[in-house]
């Protein structure tokens, strides 16, 4: 067993050393002891109090036995209806965890470095994550075009970095123009034009520049990045290397969520295979999060990488000028980066043409919940939502109908009734008061209690709120209490007034997207399901 000193020797000189060093202690002991925190603080010259505070921020860093050895059961909104609460009770010493990204074949149970999946304690099995099914609409794909080929996640199956070679033969200006011309935009949900972002980093002063791949997929109902990294990790690595060439970046980081330990191994292996092709000019690092949804927010992610308390950063300045170590940094989502190599090979016009009508390109959509065929699908922008739900995914389970779907995981709130008749593109969905975001869609059939679903979603936001800004820290708590009747007025008018006032102020004043988006849940609940709200208040929920 490695000594404290050996672990510190191994990591202290590395890039972004805090997280991997904490993981090293966590893996060695099964938890992070007081002694470990003192050793890390001393080794990295960070105040003890700061390391302690940071450790307590992450959900999965245990501070006492059995720690890592105890099972953690996903109780996300999809798994909740797949038997998660009963499973949680039946496993000794188990604790709940937020959505762990296996909504398409839940319920995942994380124990040590292993995810097992099943609906009951007896049926838990370690199985590979589901491969995206063949495209049900038979439409041309970009990101998933080759993902179903055998051994695609090895260099042999990927067959080398042809696009990188081509990109390296291009001038930076031409490469940037190509990406801009493709209309590729941030697929993590924010939709910022990728070419523009790269150009800003290329032009920003300060070196070394970095490319950060945001693989901290934590939104409930979103599991697309898992599929890409499990079955086509080289597409992401190649995309990062092309981004590095376009911007002059010499360092790259993949920040992967804690809950994907098998993915970590797959990506680690792929990185080793790619080392030679990347060359000396671009060094890639893989970092594992500690379990915090907010670290998917780019400011928090950068703080987390740097070993700071993972609060979001104030903007401006933006990461394009002040990113990792306050130097110019591209932060791109997994899906965005995976789209780059095909665009380089096939051209901007080809990519734009994949969308329907005036829309450019494609979007990966994760569908889960009460639906016949859940999974990841690559849809052209502009595809009607009902086509996706009914034709691609087979509609609601036998004998039931779709009552509501969530948008952007849970951040976009609910769509229901006539508003389900909408096309999958940001302007159309925003016109309904929701947003597409990272395109996690959870389906709830007509047997579900929507107030209960809303409570589950809001509880997630409250637990994941970082605590930096007042409206989100207090607002998510108060809305959660109002959805399960723990506190708040019983009178419907007063209840609606309080919930609306809190929501409106959260939307207008929260410091980051979490607090801005969370009230979409309550606003859309009241809009589509006023009778269910009234009934739940009447029942003294």
């Amino acid at each position, binding site marked *: 067993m490695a000594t404290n000193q050996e672990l510190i020797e191994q990591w202290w000189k590395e890039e972004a050393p805090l997280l991997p060093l904490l993981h090293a202690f966590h893996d060695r002991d099964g938890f992070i002891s007081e002694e470990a925190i003192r050793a890390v603080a001393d080794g990295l010259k960070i105040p003890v*109090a700061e390391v302690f505070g940071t450790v*307590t921020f992450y959900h999965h860093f245990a501070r006492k036995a059995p720690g890592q050895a105890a099972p953690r059961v996903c109780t996300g909104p999809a798994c909740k209806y797949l038997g998660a609460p009963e499973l949680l009770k039946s496993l000794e010493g188990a604790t709940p965890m937020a959505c762990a990204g296996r909504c398409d074949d839940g319920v995942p149970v994380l124990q040590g470095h292993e995810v097992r999946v099943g609906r009951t304690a007896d049926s838990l099995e370690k199985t590979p994550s589901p491969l995206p099914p063949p495209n049900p609409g038979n439409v041309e794909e970009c990101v998933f075009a080759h993902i179903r080929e055998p051994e695609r996640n090895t260099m042999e199956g990927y067959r080398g970095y042809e696009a990188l070679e081509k990109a390296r033969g291009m001038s930076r200006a031409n490469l940037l123009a190509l990406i801009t011309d493709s209309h590729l935009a941030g697929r993590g949900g924010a939709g910022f034009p990728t070419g523009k972002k790269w150009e800003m980093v290329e032009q920003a002063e300060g070196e070394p520049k970095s490319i950060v791949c945001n693989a901290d997929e934590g939104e409930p109902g979103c599991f697309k990045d898992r599929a890409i990294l499990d079955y086509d990790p080289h597409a992401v690595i190649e995309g990062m290397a092309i981004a590095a060439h376009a911007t002059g970046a010499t360092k790259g980081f993949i920040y992967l969520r804690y809950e994907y330990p098998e993915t970590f191994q797959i990506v680690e292996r792929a990185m080793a295979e790619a080392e030679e092709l990347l060359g000396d000019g671009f060094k890639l690092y893989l970092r594992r999060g500690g379990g915090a949804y907010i670290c998917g927010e780019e400011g928090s992610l950068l703080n987390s990488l740097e070993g700071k308390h993972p609060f979001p950063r104030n903007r401006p300045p933006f990461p394009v000028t002040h990113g990792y170590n306050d130097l110019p940094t591209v932060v791109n989502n997994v899906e965005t980066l995976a789209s780059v190599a095909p665009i380089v090979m096939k051209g901007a016009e080809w990519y734009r043409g994949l969308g329907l009508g005036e829309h450019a390109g494609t979007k990966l959509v994760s569908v889960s919940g009460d639906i016949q065929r859940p999974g990841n699908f690559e849809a052209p922008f502009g595809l009607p939502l009902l086509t996706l739900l009914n034709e691609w995914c087979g509609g609601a389970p036998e004998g039931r109908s779709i009552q509501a779907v969530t948008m952007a995981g849970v951040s976009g709130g609910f769509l229901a009734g006539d508003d389900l008749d909408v096309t999958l593109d940001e302007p159309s969905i925003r016109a309904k008061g929701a947003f597409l975001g990272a395109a996690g869609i959870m389906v709830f059939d007509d047997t579900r209690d929507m107030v209960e679903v809303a409570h589950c979603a809001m509880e997630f936001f409250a637990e994941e709120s970082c605590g930096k800004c007042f409206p989100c820290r*207090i607002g998510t708590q108060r809305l959660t209490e109002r959805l399960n009747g723990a506190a708040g007025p019983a009178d419907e008018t007063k209840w609606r007034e309080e919930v609306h006032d809190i929501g409106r102020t959260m939307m*207008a004043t929260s410091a980051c997207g979490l607090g801005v988006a969370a009230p979409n849940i309550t606003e859309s609940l009241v809009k589509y399901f006023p009778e269910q709200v009234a009934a739940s208040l009447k029942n003294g929920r």
Partner: protein
Amino acid sequence: MIAEVKPTATATLTLDGVEVSFTEGETIYEVAERAGREVPTLCYDARLEAFGGCRLCVVEVDGMRAPVASCTTPATAGMVVKTTTDAIEKHRRTLLELVASENRENEVDELRGHASQELKSLLDRYEVRGGRFAGRQSGTSNSTDDNPFILRDYDLCISCYRCVRVCAEQEGDHAITMMNRGFEKQITTEFNGILKDSACTFCGQCVQTCPTGALGDRKAMRAESLPGEVEKTRTVCPYCGVGCSVDLLTKEDRLVGVQPAMDGPANEGALCIKGQFAFDFVQHEDRLKMPLVRDEDGELHETDWETALDRAADGFKKAAGEHGRHAVYGVASGRAPHEAAYTMQKFIRAGFGTHQIDNCSRA
């Protein structure tokens, strides 16, 4: 190399319909404050890096989708800013109602600390009477920390992190930290222990910047029940030579506490444990008020200065006479100013002819 001095570019923005100039690097909040706007805030402390946590200072900026926190947003030329629209004022009131709902109480004695009335004043200004947004309260008071200086009444904590930031940015101690996240956020020390076991130096700056009195000055709080109003008298700390400005707090004729002067040129709100908490000697019964000399009976007796100084001079002369000039050793007080220290070394060097002179601050 001497930096080239460039004339400061004067840019302007429109603040509530009035054109005001600003210098590059200023935030909207700083510009607004300079222009006399009373933009509310709870997480702001001019000495610290802007944090953007309380969101009370949000303002409307033309062309922005949502209000922005004025404390973290740099002023830019041509910006059109509105600090007090109806919508903004409603958000501020809602935010204050939310904050008020998480505390056990929102009114505390002013003796708790310099900034302790900030929340209360804003609740009054926005006529927040409480009652809305009822629910669980945040923060757990630490009842085991019985240090004599700092009360840790986290039931009143609103997670503005001013204490964490002042400890790190101003004092450099990094004794205070933030445990957990969201509504479970708890201000504490390493391993959630007591201050004595942490890196805390008991400088008291966390207490003085706390806007709710969650951190309280235990020494001053002893006088909460004494009659009379609290009066503040500006003076200079009597300890070392730094010259920190302080406000002495008195009730009637009694010294009850010390607060650092936020505008003190030498300290800008900082003090050390002695300047902040060690004032009991002023009214201590053991304090010498008259010179004492030891008589032949071996006891100390009160006398006048003339007699006492003569007795001291005789003693020095006798020692030097019998054992030589190096039998004398002078130690000047660190509490005395430069001029006194100079006089002291002159007295020892020129008067006795020895270099045996030192200052207690060196110890």
